[in-house]
């Protein structure tokens, strides 16, 4: 019985962790797809989102509960929105910085400089204590899965990730806007030459990616504590997810996220001595056999 319990729990944990990773990675993929730049400040935006979400949700909760205690959950929602806003703003700053700087490496270095600064500023502003947001009761009720009680918030995270996935899929692959975005990724100049203000559009999508990352920070920060250093952990794992799945592929990110989530979860549960190697080992193994990740493919003829 305990082994059944452990297995189901581990499986569920893998899936919920994978769900959060997907939310994080999809923002990364979106931004990478647009700018062709490794956004190394991705983790920092996540962390900033978490911190801003924390402060906003605290403030609003205090304020709201003074008037209408029943609406305590509003604070958390406000926090998540604040996190999204913060993420979008940073994306805006980043885009302004990158503009006019040519080349992948210099642009990457810019994002790295920004990441370092944001991370340290967070430490400056919020101190080094580990923090978490308080999600509202409504989404925290334990639910029973396969007869096992399971934290409701984690189920909520799965729902959130599914929503993000579907929404992004519809946006990118089933809408006029999506076709233009993908065309712009392939060749910005030509899209502009057919009459589309691609720079404005890209800025918006870029900010959307930032917002998504910020929101992920608040959502993730509601059950995984965050502190200085979380930024680069998240960045590393997002990179792994995205690369396992194949860059620029939404489906790839989803599969990569679930794989990483499951490996992490089962690795820790069943091979704890090796858990340090499992993730990097998976990345190496996948890339050794599929140099473009699982779903990465080239649509350009050699």
């Amino acid at each position, binding site marked *: 019985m305990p082994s059944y319990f452990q297995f189901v729990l581990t499986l569920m944990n893998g899936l919920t962790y994978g769900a959060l990773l997907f939310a994080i990675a999809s923002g990364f993929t979106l931004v990478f797809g647009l700018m062709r730049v490794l956004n190394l400040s991705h983790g920092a935006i996540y962390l900033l989102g978490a911190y801003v979400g924390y402060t906003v949700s605290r403030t609003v909760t205090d304020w709201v509960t003074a008037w209408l205690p029943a609406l305590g959950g509003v604070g958390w929602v406000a926090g998540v929105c604040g996190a999204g806003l913060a993420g979008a703003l940073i994306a805006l700053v980043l885009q302004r910085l990158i503009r006019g700087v040519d080349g992948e490496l210099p642009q990457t270095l810019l994002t790295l400089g920004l990441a370092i600064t944001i991370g340290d500023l967070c430490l400056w502003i919020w101190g080094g204590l580990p923090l978490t947001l308080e999600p509202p009761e409504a989404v925290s009720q334990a639910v029973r899965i396969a007869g096992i009680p399971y934290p409701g918030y984690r189920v909520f995270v799965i729902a959130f990730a599914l929503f993000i996935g579907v929404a992004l899929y519809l946006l990118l692959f089933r809408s006029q806007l999506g076709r233009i975005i993908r065309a712009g990724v392939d060749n910005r100049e030509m899209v502009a030459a057919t009459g589309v203000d691609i720079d404005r559009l890209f800025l918006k999508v870029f900010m959307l990616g930032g917002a998504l990352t910020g929101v992920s920070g608040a959502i993730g920060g509601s059950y995984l504590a965050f502190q200085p250093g979380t930024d*680069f952990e998240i960045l590393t794992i997002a990179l792994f997810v995205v690369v396992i799945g194949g860059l620029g592929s939404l489906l790839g990110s989803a599969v990569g996220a679930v794989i990483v989530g499951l490996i992490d979860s089962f690795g820790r549960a069943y091979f704890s001595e090796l858990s340090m190697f499992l993730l990097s080992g998976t990345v190496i193994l996948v890339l050794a056999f599929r140099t473009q990740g699982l779903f990465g493919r080239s649509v350009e003829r050699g």
Partner: protein
Amino acid sequence: MHTEIRTSLNERLADTARRGNRRDVTTAAVLMALAVLYPLLGTTFQLQLLTSGLITGMVAMSFSLLAGFGGMVSLAQMAFYGMAAYVVGIGGHDMGLPALLTVPLAVLSAAVLAGLFGLIAVRSSGIYFLIMTLALLQMFFGVAMQWQSVTGGYNGVAGIQAPEVAGFSLGDAAPLYLVTVIVAAASYLGLRWLLRTPFGLTLQGIRDRPERMRALGFRVQLHRWLLMVLSGVIAGLAGVLGVYYHGVVSPDVAGLTASLIVVLSALVGGVSSLVGGLIGGILVTVLISVVSYLMQQWFGTSHYWTVVGLIFVVVVKNFPNGIFGVDARTRRVLERVLTRWTGAGSGDGARAPAGNGTSPQTR
């Protein structure tokens, strides 16, 4: 019609070789003079800071070698550094072997590790290669951390004694500084020579268009692999110096900050230039040291990373290709001037003419 240019090609080769040689000799002489004179001028701490910067610079140079000339942005360089450092630590400190044995062994091990990593990694390219090396670095970190009986785990190997060279202990600041300058200069000149042979051009071709190189009959994978081993040797040399400098090696060598500093150094110097890596290493090391000191002294705060990060942003905005990286426009102007003067183009083999870092498309 274009006879002047045509006849100049052969001359140009002879000429760049001559000029190059002269420049090499000058560079070497200046470095040597600096090396010999500096202990008379500098304080112990300055020497130590410069040593540390040069060691970082060597790793950065090995990074630039791969990134600038091979288009392979590798985060694994600190693993090669660490490998050599651990071999010196374990062999010299734990097992008591003489430095004469451990040092070559250490560099060899770094090369072997680079070769092993290379076997797996050279097949991928671009960001996949980058992430692959990140994963390999983490593997190295994991082994250093987990294989406690050999590596000492989290604590690593501490108290490593530096050997004596010609009666001077490398544990002292000045002798170690001198040796570091010599090793760094020798590595630089060696690489510079190597990259001016057709090998250098071959690498750049592979960087820009591996498919086409294959279609021209080159062994692309072999060249990439060899470059990786070479970079491993350089990083390994740095590792030997580093472990004597610090007296300790721990899994942190493969940690985030160490790699971050290497990458920053290389990019600040400019990945398309080898000497950029060396200078970048010194600049970044000194910068971090100075900023953290000043932030404490002036503002009483330890948040120097905020400022360091901002400085990088500003530097990149103004020198996108690093301080020593010549960007495409400057290069074209240079070329024109060169053409006018000598009827020749840029023959500086030690500078990868990558307009945009390693990006193969320029438009």
